[in-house]
């Protein structure tokens, strides 16, 4: 059989009834369009989430000091818990198996001279292991050394944007004043990509706007400020990614003990957040494909209906074609070809319209939806599948017509 010629014949038959063809295509067009657009949005959202979570470090376990209500604070005092402390960090380093580095961090509320009040820079008091845990890269100078922490040296390391904002002071060897105390700039970080987090649990710090000082060297809290825990965050860097979950469990137990059984902290495992996000995504995809499947089914039934009507309408033509040499297989190929061309065309149109829709939505809403290869391939595959399924029965009916009887048909 000459498949190309047969397909062309099928295409010509479709072109003969453009309106009918177009209308019966619509179901497939919309189904595919919805799949493409929604999967693109889902994919964009997923990538964004994963990127955000990824910023926290997939090999890390993060222990955060919880924000306590007054009642909780009283309870904590009762149990003799003083929140996250450097002792906790030391304990975790000793007791959690597979830990490569432990870093402590304290968020410091301090006025930075020369920085704008509305958009303050973040002062972070950290231990020397901190940059390793987060893979911070230096552009110039050095990071805070263990000795700086020990001696409470008045030095600081600037994030890329902080350095720019501080102007003449924000250069290597410059002096940055925090709460009127001068800190010597010993290092400047390279610029780092940062995505604003959607929720507090996955929010990552913007290190570009940070000023790092040695833990303990930070200006003391002002008078009248309430007492704060020694650390706001302990970061555990694991040697291997698989160790994060068991390490998180151990860390939790250790801290519960040292905090007198009061849970005034929160253990965050970015890798688990990622897994969770992916699970949610999968559920969403299954639901989406269910909906798309139903629309395709409905579209397919419409096409089948149209094809069946077309077969009986063209019975005479089938008889003529049979008389001049078409075999049953030729006739089946004609009609099957029509159904597949119809759904394939609908699928292609759906893909193009879906992509256009994604573009428009991205521009209008500022989203980062992305059309990836798989949804496109899958939609086309499904469209062709629907064409074959909905065309097969009409094609077989056409093929099984008795040629002589079809010729007699009025």
């Amino acid at each position: 059989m000459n498949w190309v010629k047969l397909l062309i014949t099928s295409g010509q038959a479709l072109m003969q009834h453009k309106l009918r063809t177009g209308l019966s295509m619509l179901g497939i067009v919309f189904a595919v369009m919805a799949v493409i657009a929604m999967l693109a949005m889902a994919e964009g959202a997923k990538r964004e989430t994963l990127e955000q979570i990824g910023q926290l470090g997939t090999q890390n376990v993060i222990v955060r000091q919880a924000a306590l209500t007054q009642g909780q604070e009283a309870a904590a005092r009762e149990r003799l818990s003083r929140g996250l402390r450097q002792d906790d960090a030391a304990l975790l380093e000793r007791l959690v198996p597979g830990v490569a580095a432990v870093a402590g961090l304290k968020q410091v509320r301090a006025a930075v001279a020369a920085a704008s009040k509305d958009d303050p820079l973040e002062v972070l008091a950290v231990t020397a292991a901190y940059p390793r845990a987060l893979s911070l890269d230096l552009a110039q100078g050095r990071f805070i050394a263990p000795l700086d922490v020990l001696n409470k040296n008045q030095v600081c390391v600037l994030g890329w944007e902080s350095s720019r904002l501080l102007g003449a002071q924000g250069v290597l060897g410059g002096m940055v004043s925090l709460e009127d105390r001068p800190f010597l700039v010993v290092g400047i970080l390279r610029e780092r990509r940062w995505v604003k987090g959607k929720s507090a649990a996955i929010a990552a710090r913007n290190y570009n706007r940070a000023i790092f000082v040695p833990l303990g060297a930070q200006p003391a809290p002002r008078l009248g400020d309430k007492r704060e825990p020694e650390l706001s965050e302990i970061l555990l860097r694991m040697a291997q990614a698989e160790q994060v979950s068991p390490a998180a469990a151990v860390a939790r137990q250790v801290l519960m003990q040292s905090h007198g059984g009061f849970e005034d902290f929160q253990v965050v495992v970015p890798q688990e957040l990622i897994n969770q996000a992916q699970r949610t995504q999968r559920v969403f995809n299954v639901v989406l494909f269910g909906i798309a499947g139903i629309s395709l089914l409905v579209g397919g039934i419409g096409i089948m209906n149209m094809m069946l009507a077309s077969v009986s309408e063209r019975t005479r033509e089938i008889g003529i074609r049979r008389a001049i040499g078409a075999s049953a297989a030729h006739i089946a190929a004609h009609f099957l070809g029509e159904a597949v061309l119809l759904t394939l065309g609908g699928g292609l149109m759906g893909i193009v319209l879906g992509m256009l829709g994604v573009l428009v939505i991205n521009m209008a809403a500022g989203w980062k939806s992305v059309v990836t290869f798989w949804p496109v391939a899958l939609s086309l595959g499904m469209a062709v599948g629907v064409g074959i399924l909905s065309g097969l029965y009409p094609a077989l009916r056409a093929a099984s017509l008795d040629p002589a009887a079809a010729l007699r048909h009025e």
Partner: protein
Amino acid sequence: MAQRAPLAALRELCQDLLRPAALPQAAAEPPAGQPLVLAQGLCKFYPTQYGQVEALRGLDLTMAGGEYLAIMGASGSGKSTLLTLLGCLDRPSRGSYHLAGQDVSQMGDRELSRLRANHIGFIFQTFNLLPQLTVAENVALPFLYRQQSPELVKNQVEQAIIRVGLGHRQDHRPAQLSGGEMQRVAIARALAIKPWLILADEPTGNLDSQNSQAILALFQELNSQGVTLVVVTHDPQVAARAGRTIHLLDGRPLGAPEQAP
């Protein structure tokens, strides 16, 4: 309408596609040394819900290449049924039919179709052109179902159209033609494949006498050029042009002895 179950059709189709092709080769000329048409005890029964209709009840027919045969008979006597059998559109219920030495009664759908595509031209009372196609496209239609180089197809199609005198209407659609012209397009479509056998079922039934005369003249001209023709007709004038006439009555040639069914 007669319709086999689609599932049976699917099975037949798959078998047809899977069977190694024992297909007759497309020879330009029928093999010499045997009759072109050899039918013996040809029967065709149609099962209906009211019982079996015996459309053809034992017919012997032998035709040599180049013959011009007319078939006459009352309505319902089995003329069209005979043509569908001779034209390999259907297999006989009983009896045998050899076309140029090949046993048609044993062939599957694919082989029958191949025979029709390569060697048989049909002409109908109602012309049976496809209205959406132009004259040239209609004439080229049989070539969709056989293998041939495009240049050759173009050539043969053009020749056939010129031969029936419609060279100037190649791009017209059937709706723009008169009945006589449409029938000539149908003749061109049958001629284009250079068939062994042309079968015409009341070709002048829908035409006025002037157009009928023209078509008959064309038949005679084709026959004189060696084309084998079978024409079914009610019109004695048409039959008079043929070299031989057989009369059917109730599915049997007139004068043939009664056979046990």
